[in-house]
């Protein structure tokens, strides 16, 4: 069809972009995942100004330790969102998995909490992770095999699992946690809490998998256009399922760290976190529609939220204002990352 296309003009537009020289505007986009780094620096500067206590290793390590549990949930949610799905139930998994593990492990008499005592104490962590994996695979079954709406399924799971935790723990905190279960969340390696090291390693592993593993790259393809991924021979359903299982397992592991950190399985462990998780993930540049974002970006999202709280505490902002400011900062951070990346967030 020679008449339909102005061949000369189309050749002109395609050759107008030289192969070698890139315009500077194009390059900025490659760093859109770093858009929160300036925000972090500004927050650090404010912290330094408002309080001398801010820039001390104790304070910063404290912030890092407090971020660990949330950041693991963010890691999980980021993987799931990149693959084009979502899982709201993570915030309940962080509570229910340790409780089920304690229930199976703790003796039926003696302590305040009466477990079943079915399994030896050393199995508590594996059991906890297994519970997470089972939750993830059930959600995967409902969403992928039965093709139910993922939002509502995980919303239901959120409520159901929270209820399960309350029912098993009878609404109480479980304080007599086995030592092995408490170890990872409470110990320090080389002067830094083990949980921080573990988080760093898990983020590095996840980030590397997304960057350099075939199946990691597949997540972007699935989230970006699952039909295209399918025609390219990617086993979309299987990989998505595995991601959901990994996500819930990570949430269960966050439960292990949380329990170790505070010495007990608290009754409202993780309650209401999912808003923070989504906020951190999205201001960190992960798209809610799938296919876009990096784990590093998600990590900067968590750190931003945590630093804001820390700086406000140090600045002596009345705690009653915390909730308001927390919400406000999410919106401000969204605006910043919207314009730093120059892309619509839909």
């Amino acid at each position, binding site marked *: *069809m*020679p*008449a*339909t*296309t*102005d*061949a000369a*003009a*189309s*050749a002109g*537009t*395609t*050759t107008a*972009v*030289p*192969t070698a020289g*890139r315009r500077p505007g*194009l390059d900025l986009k*490659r760093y859109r995942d770093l858009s929160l780094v300036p925000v972090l620096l500004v927050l650090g500067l404010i912290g330094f100004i408002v309080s001398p206590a801010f820039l001390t290793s104790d304070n910063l390590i404290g912030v890092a330790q407090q971020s660990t549990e949330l950041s693991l949930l963010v890691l999980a949610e980021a993987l799931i969102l990149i693959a084009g799905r979502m899982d709201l139930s993570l915030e309940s998994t962080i509570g229910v998995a340790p409780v089920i593990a304690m229930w199976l492990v703790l003796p039926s008499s003696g302590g305040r909490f009466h477990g079943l005592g079915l399994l030896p104490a050393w199995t508590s962590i594996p059991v906890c992770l297994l519970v997470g994996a089972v939750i993830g695979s059930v959600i995967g079954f409902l969403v992928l095999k039965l093709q139910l709406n993922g939002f509502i399924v995980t919303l239901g799971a959120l409520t159901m699992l929270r209820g399960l935790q309350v029912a098993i723990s009878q609404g109480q905190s479980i304080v007599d946690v086995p030592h092995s279960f408490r170890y990872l969340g409470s110990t320090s390696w080389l002067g830094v809490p083990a949980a921080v090291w573990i988080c760093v390693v898990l983020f590095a592993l996840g980030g590397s998998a997304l*960057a*350099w*593993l*075939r*199946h*990691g*790259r597949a997540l*972007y*393809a699935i989230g*970006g*256009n699952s*039909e*295209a*991924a*399918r*025609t*390219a*021979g*990617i*086993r979309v359903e299987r990989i998505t399922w595995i991601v959901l299982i990994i996500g819930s397992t990570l949430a269960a592991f966050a439960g292990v760290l949380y329990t170790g950190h505070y010495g007990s399985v608290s009754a409202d462990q993780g309650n209401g976190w999912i808003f923070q998780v989504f906020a951190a993930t999205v201001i960190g540049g992960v798209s809610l529609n799938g*296919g*876009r974002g990096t784990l590093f970006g998600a990590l900067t999202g968590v750190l931003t939220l945590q630093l804001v709280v820390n700086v406000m505490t140090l600045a002596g902002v009345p705690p009653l204002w915390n909730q308001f400011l927390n919400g406000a900062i999410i919106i401000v951070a969204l605006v910043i990352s919207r314009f730093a990346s120059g892309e619509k967030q839909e």
Partner: protein
Amino acid sequence: MADTVTAPLAGTADPTPVVEATGITKRFGATVALQDARITVAPGESHALVGRNGAGKSTLVSILTGIQQPDGGTLLFSGSPAPAFGDTDAWRSRVACVYQRSTIIGELTVAENLFLGRQSQGALRPIRWKELRRRAADLLAEYRVEVDPAARAQDLTVEQRQFVEIARALSFGSRFIILDEPTAKLDARGIDRLFAKLRQLQEQGVAFLFISHHLQEVYDLCSSVTVYRDARHILTAPVAELGHEALVEAMTGESGGSGAAGPARRTVPADAPGVLEISDLELPGAYTGVSLAVRSGEVVGLAGATASGNVRLGETVAGLHRPQAGRITVGGRELRTGDVPSALAAGVGLVPEDRHLQGLVTERSVAENATLTVTDQLGPYGTVLPSRTRAFAQRMIEDLDIRTPGAATPVSALSGGNQQKVVVARALATRPRVVVAIRPTNGVDVKSKEFLLDRFRQVADDGGAVLIVSDELDDLRSCDRVVAMFHGRTAGEFEPGWTDEQLVAAMEGMAGPQDPHKVKGTPSHASHD
């Protein structure tokens, strides 16, 4: 159905055409969608608009309905200029369109669908449901549409839904309706009823612009026909004066006399090993009893119109559908059907039909898209090493002459033709023995088109087998052999030297007496003519 042409009744009384478009030009970027096009429809006339894909029909429809503004030309409705762009109500009172895809909302009742967005007089007036149903009943009765206004729209049959759409269109006061492929989803009896309804409306003075790929319907229904080709107006003539051959000739731009199609090509030796063999394949609702073999070194075209099943057949070979019966073998080994990774492993590469839906992850880079199918060459143990990916992508970029600032550029920044090349790169990246290319030159300029077809030829020359699934004659002309499909069955096989009209006739289910050298099987002819 009789071939009689209904005389335009109102047309004799009022000579001012309901629509008169002249010199319409529309460009999309570098693409000229319409060049100095024109059309005139008299009151009460049923006018057909035909043309091949890309002829500019849909662009004309969107200009006539006020969805798009023409770059130039004049548009008159009943002698007065077209309403201002964006004045939806004014447009709707002059022209109505029944689109290929239903715009009826299935969850709502017929009555509410008819008055959607105007159920009550004002935004704050509550809807009076009884009154609404009564108005709907009146409207349906006016056009003698026998549908219960209280019924849910999704419970209607396809043609009942179309009647409702037509009634709604007319209720805005328009006397001119555009029907965009209204028969595509109807069975023969539904088409009969639709045509009866259209004739009846015509007697009430309504004019139609009828767009269809089924040329027989044009002869059945319309009194005059306008042919577009390559964004231009080719001819307008009374249907009765235009034979089938002349019509196809006008659409294809090739005179029926010249038999030579494309350059002379060597024939593939008959003893060349069969690489792809399909036998008695059946997928309910798409195709039945299809057998086909593609030999090493051969490029075979699989022609067919939209619902012919040729696309689904191609996708089945690539593992996207699991056929109910039959087998596919690649290089003598039976393929596990319905599984894309197995098909890839067996050496089948697919250029999917729609690059946006099935081909590209547009936000990701050229390199990533081009290597999406590659599972084993980018690094050990399932790793994807950036350096190897870049090198691999660079090879594909050079191989296919993809114009891109770099391998890391997101595909969305590329022009359509280059995007299509990325999809082809993705298919060729695995070095397949069998390439299934579905409408591979869709939306690609003429240079890239030749390039891609040459590239497929190269795959065949290297001992592979290529199946080009398309309704574009340009694609098919480059093939060693063309198999035409119609309504899920093979309707004929064409050796080189076929003429456009022979092939188009077979694709449209009108295999006439001038059929080529050999025709296998008889087409299941459309039963409505």
